[in-house]
């Protein structure tokens, strides 16, 4: 008897859910599955897109920090394992290189007229991704400690060094500075940022040949080493997860961290009112007389897999549009620096905003950049630990890159 009573309810539920999904996203059938990195801003986007599920629409998601390890094989399968892959500047490259994502021009023309021009990531005129958030590494400062030693908020890395010295000399902190200097991927990013800040170019124009062994490269390495001398001797184990708690414990005065870490550092959890209220997120400093912040700009956006049916692609695209809707931005305003109009920049976004408006460079979207990035991560510790000269390390980076690039067929 009981079953009979429940059944109509279930049907009614399905119909209601189906129709509400239809109302929200305008889709009534299709298979949507999302592969994405694992941090709060992306959870907000994907969970909002999930509201489109129901009726004939099935929705599944996989948030994992290892998304890049599985994206190429998962999207190579036909039909692809995931219909949507959320990417950033660097992680879109392997998908482009293997031709695994589809151009979105037709879908944008049909459904995405409201998207802003700067959200459309185009490669050779074809829209390959829709960006929805920006990120960059920039400076975090403790205003109270800088006031104590009479320093302003540093505008250049030279001023950062001076402030660090003053803080150390005043006996406030032995190691006032930190950056993400773990030699996995993080240290390579620090090299890229600092080298861009010096106005450096990574490759000989029009080729994949490396060109980092020059004066700017040497200056970059020297600055990194000078900074790490104010960093805890454990600095070669520092990534976001290690540095954020040290900041929250009040043991740092200046740090170069991701904008997306800001929310965690500014919230009330894990820290005291004194520390959070004095923490300011400011632009990445300039360096070596350069006129742009020494940082690289990153965007996160979604792509649609090539190896899926037209119907699923359309459903996925429209669900993701719902995921990045103004409604989502209003609910999750402070989780990220959103690119959509509804976004109201808050305290946590100030650093990324200042860094971007200071004119810093986007992270190079080159097919062979990843090889150079990993080569520099691997070779830099030798220099930072004082085992060899800057020139030797730069030569090693180039040599390691050349071996890798030859194997990948770029040289």
């Amino acid at each position, binding site marked *: 008897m009981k079953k009979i009573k429940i059944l109509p309810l279930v049907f009614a539920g399905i119909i209601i859910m189906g129709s509400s999904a239809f109302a929200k996203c305008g889709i009534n059938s299709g298979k949507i599955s999302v592969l994405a990195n694992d941090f709060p801003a992306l959870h907000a986007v994907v969970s909002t897109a999930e509201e489109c599920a129901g009726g004939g629409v099935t929705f599944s998601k996989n948030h994992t920090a290892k998304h890049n390890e599985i994206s190429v094989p998962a999207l190579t399968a036909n039909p692809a394992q995931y219909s949507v892959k959320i990417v950033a500047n660097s992680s879109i490259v392997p998908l*482009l290189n293997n031709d695994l994502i589809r151009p979105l021009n037709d879908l944008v023309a049909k459904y995405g007229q409201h998207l802003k021009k700067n959200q459309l990531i*185009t*490669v050779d005129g074809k829209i390959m991704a829709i*960006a929805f958030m920006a990120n960059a590494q920039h400076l975090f400062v403790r205003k109270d400690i800088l006031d104590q030693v009479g320093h302003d908020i540093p505008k250049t890395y030279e001023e950062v060094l001076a402030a660090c010295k003053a803080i150390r000399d005043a006996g406030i902190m032995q190691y006032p500075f930190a950056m993400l200097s773990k030699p996995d991927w993080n240290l390579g990013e620090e090299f890229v940022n600092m080298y861009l800040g010096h106005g450096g170019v990574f490759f000989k124009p029009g080729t994949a040949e490396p060109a980092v062994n020059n004066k700017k490269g040497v200056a970059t390495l020297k600055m990194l080493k000078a900074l790490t001398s104010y960093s805890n001797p454990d600095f070669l184990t520092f990534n976001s997860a290690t540095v954020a708690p040290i900041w929250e414990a009040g043991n740092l005065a200046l740090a170069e961290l991701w904008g997306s870490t800001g929310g965690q550092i500014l919230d009330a959890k894990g820290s005291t009112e004194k520390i959070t209220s004095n923490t300011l997120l400011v632009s990445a400093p300039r360096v070596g007389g350069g006129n742009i912040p020494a940082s690289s700009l990153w*965007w996160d956006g979604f792509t649609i897999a090539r190896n899926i049916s037209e119907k699923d692609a359309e459903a996925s695209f429209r669900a993701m549009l719902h995921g990045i809707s103004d409604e989502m931005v209003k609910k999750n305003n402070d989780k990220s620096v959103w690119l959509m109009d509804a976004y109201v920049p808050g305290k946590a976004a100030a650093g990324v905003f200042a860094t971007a408006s200071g004119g810093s460079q986007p992270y190079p979207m080159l*097919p062979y950049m990843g090889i150079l990035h990993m080569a520099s991560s691997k070779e830099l510790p030798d220099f930072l*630990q004082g085992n060899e000269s800057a020139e030797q390390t730069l030569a090693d980076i180039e040599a390691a890159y050349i071996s890798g690039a030859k194997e990948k067929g770029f040289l």
Partner: protein
Amino acid sequence: MPHRTFIYFILPSLLSMILLIAVPVFSVIVQSFFVEHEQVLIEVENCNPFKCVKSLSVDQQAGAKLRQEAPLGRFNGINTYTNRNHLAFDEVALAWMESKSLVDFGAKLLNLPFYKALLFTLTYTFIVSPFVLIFGLAIALGVNGLPKFVKGPSIFVSLLPMIVTPLIGSLILFWMIDAKGILGATLQLIFDDNNLSLKASMPLTWVMLIVYGIWHSTPFAFIVLYAGLQTVPQETLEAASIDGATRWERIRHVAVPHMVPLIIFITLMQLMDNFRVFEPIVGFSASAKATSLSWIIFNDLHGDSKLFGSAAASSIMTIIGVMILLMPVLIRSWKNFNIKLH
């Protein structure tokens, strides 16, 4: 046993060995001889939220056509093995010619990733393996001498380090040896040095990894040797006692010779395992101070650009390395085997 019966008898194990061992190894060997096709690069205009730039991009159609014609890529012979990221023949020759002294040559050699990793891998293997044997034997003898009712619990406790997953174990210890962690802070107190950090200095990082390795593997040697101790003939031990042998002499002349096959077995396993040292390097975030051959493979397969040929070459060299290491032990057991036959 007739040949036919024998074949049917070993067929299942033969098949599984071919499927699970020979085929994968063979495919890795093949992979190591190939590199990717030459990429066809074209200049395109890319736009992102910040600006538009002209840059190079991979021509997908041209690439797809090449891949379809030859899915394995370009044949590269042993060039992947000899390039800078592996055996680095050219760089080693150059270093040899340019060096003024052996020390200088050694320094140049250790600047190359493969040799740097090899040095740590071998040091780790040759220090951890004997210590594991010695400590394993000591614990086995200790536990064997305990009264019966505490034996069970003490065996369980002694096995704990092996039960903990290596990666998790090293991560837990990583936080404990932090300057603010319980072990790190205690060491600072003992040595009265506020700047002492196990993570910051290379020798201390090596010591830490080696101590971790010994801690983790000793239970294996212990449990094998403890089982072996149960089979030592009591008559011989008693006879030795009556002849006036001390406890040490009984161990040295009765128990240990009895367990030689087990000791060889543990040595083999330890040499193999330790040569593949990997998890503690990741767990302790120690890659700036210590790398191993397995870590190189991991690093090649990590990040946006994966170097499959490179990783395959490193894997094959690891297998060859293990074979060289095991050679003396294998030759020895082969000789013993032959002696027993005749």
